């Protein structure tokens, strides 16, 4: 369980990072809480790790006019402690404590989690539920991608070689918005058997397919449950069949439906 050999560089400017990332066998390293295990298990063997944690300006939480802009290097622990996130992006604030364990939340980053696109992870579902916008840069240009277009499949995203996810913008919650995050796990911090990020009529399930699964449900709970039955086909895991997960998704749907508050 030791990582294969690789070279390491810690650039201090974006320009230098992009030069290093031009190497097709280079990988960006942020908090490393998913990349390092995959190296340890030798599922990945990059030639070069480009440690982006020294890049300036990527670890900020900024409250702008109608969005909160979260830099890619903001850690889970920072989000967990942030009064701005609690106030303006309550869905995310509810989701953060579900991310792994304290020691991992101290190093793992929001950018790393989103760029990895693990379909069982919390943030991708939140990003889709909230219609977040991803800010992506390469050496010469910047582009913006909506969350729904960013997640392409199992660990697949819209990120192209040589690009970095720089920040994510979440809309500031209005007073009338309702947000609920729920997940079922065997133990606190484990991967969810199934989870749900709900923002108003947007219901996004995690652990339910190859990417966050979005449903739009309005008014009628019975219809919503039927829609879920017809539209959700979650992959079985070691302990739970697809049918069990679909049933549990319905349980979460009903719980979220019955929660009439934006706070915990």
């Amino acid at each position, binding site marked *: 369980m030791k990582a294969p*050999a690789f070279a390491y560089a810690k650039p201090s400017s974006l320009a230098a990072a992009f030069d290093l990332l031009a190497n097709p066998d280079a990988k960006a390293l942020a908090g490393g809480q998913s990349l390092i295990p995959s190296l340890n298990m030798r599922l990945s063997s990059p030639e070069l790790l480009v440690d982006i944690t020294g890049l300036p300006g990527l670890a900020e939480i900024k409250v702008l006019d109608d969005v909160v802009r979260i830099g890619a290097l903001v850690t889970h622990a920072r989000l967990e402690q942030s009064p701005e996130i609690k106030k303006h992006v309550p869905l995310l604030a509810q989701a953060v404590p579900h991310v792994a364990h304290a*020691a991992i939340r*101290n190093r793992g980053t929001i950018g790393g989690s989103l760029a990895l696109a693990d379909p069982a992870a919390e943030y991708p579902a939140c990003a889709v539920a909230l219609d977040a916008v991803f800010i992506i840069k390469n050496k010469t240009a910047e582009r913006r991608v909506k969350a729904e277009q960013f997640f392409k499949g199992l660990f697949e995203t819209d990120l192209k070689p040589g690009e970095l996810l720089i920040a994510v913008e979440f809309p500031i919650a209005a007073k009338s918005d309702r947000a609920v995050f729920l997940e079922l796990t065997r133990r606190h911090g484990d991967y969810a058997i199934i989870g749900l990020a709900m923002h108003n009529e947007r219901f996004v399930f995690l652990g339910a397919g190859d990417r966050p699964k979005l449903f739009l449900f309005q008014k009628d709970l019975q219809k919503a449950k039927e829609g879920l039955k017809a539209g959700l086909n979650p992959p079985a895991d070691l302990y739970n069949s697809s049918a069990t997960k679909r049933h549990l998704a319905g349980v979460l749907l009903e719980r979220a439906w019955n929660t009439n508050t934006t706070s915990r």
Partner: protein
Amino acid sequence: MEHEYDITLTVNGTAVSRRVPARQHLVDFLRDELELTGSHAGCEHGVCGACTLRVNGEIVRGCLMLAVQANGCRVDTIEGLSDSKELAALQKAFYERNALQCGFCTPGMLLAAQDLILKSNRPTREEIRNHISGNYCRCTGYEAIVDSIEEVVNGKS
């Protein structure tokens, strides 16, 4: 090919400079290079918590951080925190309540527990369990560990 880099860090209050392979984990660096073998390498992929360390005041997984990433950091291990007596109350409670059997998880468990004690005000048993959920113990069934942490929390002035 092995790629090596020079690092300087502070370990338990002492400045240390070494040349390390890029792929060496922080916990292996501490164990193999500095002979600080109190931090244990268990699962080596971030699940068991036996390698829990403190870096710049925050607990981390020693197997999910490279030694080279700790360049310039302040690292505290079970050895340093025992010597400084910071963990004395927890260690006493663990000892008195049989909160360890084989002891493999104990250094990591103590660091995780101390993190909770420093950061929260009178956590409930539920919160204690949540906070140590990333640290596996295969002997005790956790009950005595939670009891010990609770005792220290309640004794906190």
